[in-house]
């Protein structure tokens, strides 16, 4: 067995391809392409796809902090998404508080929900944890449905579309695309920072071996709680942005197993526990699901889901480490390992 060189031991030169804890040219190039697409003035329907890819990229990254880095696979993240969406919307429509502030309040409440979930499920691992997250989101959804004096119940809430910067409602889709891209870049930067931090290492340790982490002085419950709270807060912000774009929400629309699965799926396809993975996953899956839905949704109801699922199975079979894993393998070929 030969010794390997540790990439992060030679931090002077910027890497070409994604490396843990560091920014690479690949990511800079992606960002430039994304910026160009925002200002390119493409057709409105394509702008829809673009900004949803950004939004879901950020949401996938937020999910990945819990699911990929801390090993807390959650199928309940739409609860945090819904909490964020409702918090900013209720604050702006009822109390006239600008969403620019409401978003942060929503993030805080979502973080508290995340911490509560982590503490409730403190002793649960693996499939038991996953099932309890699913149940948790259902509880939140049913709660939102029944607390109609606050949430409007099944009728939902609408944000009156009067475009203004202070109301975070825009007439142009390019403005929304820029907003969503900013969200994506922010969550990406947080993820990169996490990868290079002590806290990030603690999460890796808790994920890989909790007993060993405890023996090294790492408090696993604290780590899991913090990871889930951070992940939930960032997901809540995504929920607020979603509400500001669609200008309507009802409990079953923003809190659903389908949405939760989507958050988990994008990082799984793109590459769990990597920063670039969820972004690649969203750029592949979000346009695909939107296109399939618009082309097949009306002619053969449900057919787009069949094709979509088939594609997923193929990815899982041939790229178990996701797109990021495949990219890593490809770019490492010929390099000394």
């Amino acid at each position, binding site marked *: *067995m030969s*010794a*390997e060189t540790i990439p992060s031991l030679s931090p002077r030169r910027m890497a070409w391809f994604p490396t843990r804890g560091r920014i690479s040219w690949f990511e800079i190039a992606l960002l430039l392409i994304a910026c160009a697409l925002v200002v390119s003035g493409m057709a409105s329907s394509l702008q829809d796809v673009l900004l949803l890819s950004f939004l879901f990229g950020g949401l996938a990254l937020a999910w990945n902090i819990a699911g990929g880095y801390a090993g807390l696979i959650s199928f309940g993240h739409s609860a945090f998404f819904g909490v964020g969406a409702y918090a900013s919307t209720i604050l702006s429509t009822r109390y006239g508080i600008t969403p620019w502030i409401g978003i942060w309040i929503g993030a805080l409440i979502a973080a508290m929900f995340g911490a509560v979930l982590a503490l409730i499920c403190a002793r649960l691992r693996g499939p038991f944890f996953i099932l309890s997250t699913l149940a948790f989101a259902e509880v939140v959804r049913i709660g939102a449905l029944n607390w109609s004096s606050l949430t409007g119940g099944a009728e939902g809430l609408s944000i009156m579309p009067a475009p203004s910067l202070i109301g975070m409602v825009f007439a142009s889709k390019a403005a929304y695309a820029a907003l969503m891209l900013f969200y994506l870049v922010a969550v990406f930067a947080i993820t990169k920072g996490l990868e290079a*931090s002590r806290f990030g290492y603690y999460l890796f340790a808790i994920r*890989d071996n909790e*007993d060993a982490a405890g*023996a*090294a*002085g790492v408090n696993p419950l604290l780590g899991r709680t913090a990871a889930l709270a951070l992940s939930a807060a960032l997901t809540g912000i995504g929920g607020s942005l979603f509400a500001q774009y669609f200008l309507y929400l009802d409990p079953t629309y923003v809190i659903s197993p389908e949405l939760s699965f989507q958050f988990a799926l994008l990082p799984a396809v793109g590459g769990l526990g990597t920063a670039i993975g969820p972004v690649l996953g969203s750029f592949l899956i979000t346009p695909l699901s939107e296109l399939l839905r618009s082309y097949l949704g009306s002619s053969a109801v449900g057919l787009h889901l069949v094709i979509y699922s088939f594609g997923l199975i193929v990815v899982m079979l041939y790229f178990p480490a996701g797109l990021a894993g495949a990219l890593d393998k490809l770019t490492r070929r010929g390099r000394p390992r």
Partner: protein
Amino acid sequence: MSALLEVRHVSRSFRTTLAVDDASFEVQPGELLGLIGPNGAGKSTLFNLVAGVIAPSSGQILFDGKPIQGWKSHDIARVGVARTFQIPKPYRQLSVIENVMLSAFLREKSIAGARRLAEATLADVGLDAYGGSPASSLTVGLLKRLEVARALAMRPKLVLFDEIMAGLTPTEVGAMTKFVAGLPARGITVIWVEHVLYAIMKTATRMVVVNRGKKIAEGTPTELARHPEVVKAYLGEEMDLA
């Protein structure tokens, strides 16, 4: 001189089984205490009690004069008790040096500082050539050394070694024995559980022998080799051939 670790009348039962039965012993600073006994004697349970993996049903455990029984393992780690795992528990998705850095974070809060301490510790146990390898690629012998490196990178006052020789080649056993024997001189007190008896008999300053959850003997290795209870526990009753 006051004891670094005091185990006072500690018992632990699992349902109807009494795994540790009223065990008491002390470890002085700078000692290398061997803890031996046949399979199922309760050595591992005793270890897990001191390391905080499980809490005693009754009794007291004092470290540096402070009661620590019932503490969580991460709190016990923070006051200066490190341990290895009998079956190595590496962080499989991390590299070897990152495995050690996670222990080093206890003393070095910065990434760079932890990396330096981890590099020094890897060199200490002879793993410096494997720093960048994924932990999942190591052989059993190397994983055992990684366990030792992780424990030592915490700069502990007391380290608990749980069968670090099992699965090693005779040459590796020799090197490891020498290494462990040198730890007390560096200010690290050692409690060592081992099945490879010749290694531990050579190095331990004192030994505690347990069988069926009870301490049956205590003394220097030479004393114990002739102790009738110890011989009985390991070899069975003397047969009367007359």
